[in-house]
């Protein structure tokens, strides 16, 4: 056995140190200067991202496979840190008016740490720890506005349902352990390939699907999503929508494609059907929504369905599609939710009808919202189109019905996305005062919009990076 090399955990340790540092500094620094904590977290994360970039190409296993370091994990880690940094940048004003900066930023950082652990997890225990670290941090974040009934109600729903889903997931993991005698994913994979498929194994897989389906909000395990998304503070919602979901996809791929390829034939159809149901349900129920956050919640359910498509064939191309989509989805989500955050900050409303005439009040906000939504709907030349293309092209051969469902439902989704655009651009504002954007918010919005456009027009470089990352997935 190789001696344990602590330098392999540089990123995780740095993020943990940053989170603790922010928490402690929050106790020390006076009230007036706590807004600096946001900048500290932002630049801290950017710095750690720089370190992460320098670790590209470092592929190895720690502790006989308990912790996997590869480009795949690193790509996800960078994605998480990037989304955390963007969320922090976009919501500083909002947090300053809410108070509790230290706790807030450190919770975001700890959630990021949990996600990073998940991305590298090579065994069930690490997986569980990362998952719970992320979930508990998110629970705290969801009910951060503890004086507000909706926020606390959302937290309540989240903790009880998440606890239950963890129990289910754990039960499945314990069964897998019992059947194989190992908790290390790669070893489990080897042993399962040799065994016949028993009902207990099927039950274990069902429970894994349910437990992780809850995290990615796949129908029918999605019920918590709209309520929690609506009740949570908006920046938290946005981080929940991209970070938590992306991390769960990272671990879902690891668990199913690296851990259960031996019984691929048993779960692939279930995943395909779940994807179809999720796409259909998310898009249909989004139509009658009147609250922007709720609308985005249902749209994010539908998006999870699209991403799930990449899992169906369990190939490198599918993994690539998932990673590509998750990455670009970060920017679309940051764009849409940052607009919602700042709009709430200014007007105190999340209702769609109050967005009337936003294009006159703040052209940038309206434009970013439009670009983000069109990208989610998959309209070329925006990033979402390329992402959907990469996902669906993996299943053209064999799952044509799923492709059709995806396409038809994309069309349906245009209806509600464009309804938002219509309200923003056609209607006259009730209150025509222009909205002035503070520069951090403006920067976040512009970054989100530009990246969405650039990836859409020139997907080559990102596609190559993702290829490289997906390639290392099968190296262990």
């Amino acid at each position, binding site marked *: 056995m190789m001696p344990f090399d602590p330098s392999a955990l540089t990123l995780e340790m740095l993020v943990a140190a940053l989170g603790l540092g922010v928490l402690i500094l929050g106790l020390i620094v006076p009230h007036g200067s706590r807004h600096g904590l946001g900048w500290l977290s932002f630049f801290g994360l950017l710095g750690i991202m720089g370190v992460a970039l320098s670790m590209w190409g470092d592929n190895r296993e720690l502790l006989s496979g308990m912790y996997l370091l590869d480009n795949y994990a690193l790509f996800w880690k960078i994605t998480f840190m990037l989304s955390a940094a963007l969320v922090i940048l976009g919501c500083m004003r909002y947090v300053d008016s809410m108070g509790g900066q230290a706790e807030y930023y450190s919770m975001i950082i700890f959630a990021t740490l949990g996600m990073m652990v998940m991305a590298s997890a090579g065994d069930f225990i690490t997986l569980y720890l990362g998952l719970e670290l992320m979930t508990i941090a998110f629970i705290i974040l969801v009910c951060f506005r503890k004086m507000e009934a909706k926020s606390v109600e959302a937290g309540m729903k989240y903790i009880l349902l998440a606890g239950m889903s963890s129990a289910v997931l754990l*039960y499945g993991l314990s069964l897998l352990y019992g059947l194989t005698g190992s908790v290390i994913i790669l070893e489990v994979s080897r042993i399962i390939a040799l065994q016949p498929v028993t009902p207990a194994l099927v039950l274990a897989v069902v429970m894994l699907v349910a437990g992780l389906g809850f995290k990615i909000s796949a129908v029918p395990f999605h019920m918590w999503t709209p309520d929690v998304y609506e009740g949570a503070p908006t920046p938290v919602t946005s981080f929940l929508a991209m970070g938590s979901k992306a991390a769960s996809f990272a671990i879902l791929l690891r668990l199913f494609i690296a851990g259960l390829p031996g019984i691929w034939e048993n779960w692939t159809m279930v995943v395909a059907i779940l994807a179809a149901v999720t796409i259909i349900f998310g898009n249909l129920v989004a139509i009658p929504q009147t609250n922007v956050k709720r609308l985005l919640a249902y749209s994010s359910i539908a998006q999870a369905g699209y991403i799930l498509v990449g899992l169906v064939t369990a190939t490198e191309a599918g993994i690539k599609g998932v990673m590509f989509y998750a990455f670009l989805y970060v920017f679309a989500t940051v764009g849409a939710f940052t607009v919602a955050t700042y709009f709430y900050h200014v007007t105190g409303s999340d209702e769609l009808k109050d967005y009337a005439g936003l294009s006159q009040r703040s052209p940038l906000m309206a434009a970013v919202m439009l670009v983000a939504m069109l990208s989610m709907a998959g309209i070329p030349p925006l990033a979402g189109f390329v992402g959907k293309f990469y996902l669906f092209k993996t299943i053209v051969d064999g799952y044509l019905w799923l492709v059709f469902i995806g396409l038809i439902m994309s069309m349906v989704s245009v209806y509600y996305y464009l309804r938002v655009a219509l309200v923003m651009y056609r209607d006259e504002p009730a209150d025509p005062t222009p909205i002035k954007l503070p520069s951090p918010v403006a920067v976040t919005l512009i970054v989100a919009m530009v990246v969405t456009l650039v990836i859409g027009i020139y997907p080559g470089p990102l596609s190559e990076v993702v290829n490289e990352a997906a390639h290392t997935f099968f190296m262990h």
Partner: protein
Amino acid sequence: MLAISLTHYVVLSALLFSIGLFGVLTKRNAVAVLICIELMLNAVNINLVAFSKYVTPTDFIGQIFSIFVITVAAAEVGVGLAIIIAIYRNRLSVNLDDFDWLKW
């Protein structure tokens, strides 16, 4: 006298899981639901320890796993109780049926 085998443990754990599940679905008090979730987690722990004893008697992976589960569950209960207190202050109730402001 009947020898106690792995099957007994697994059945016990399945029963405990189901009881916990039933509680989650039927109890109206938030604290009770939280405790029922703990029951489900304990069912998992029984599973893990039993498998550790019978499947991999030489190493203690299952036991270690269950210690982690217990620890995390404690943290979760801590947060859960805090939320229940916060929501009680807000709405003067811990009845889950009262919490339906967020819907549709």
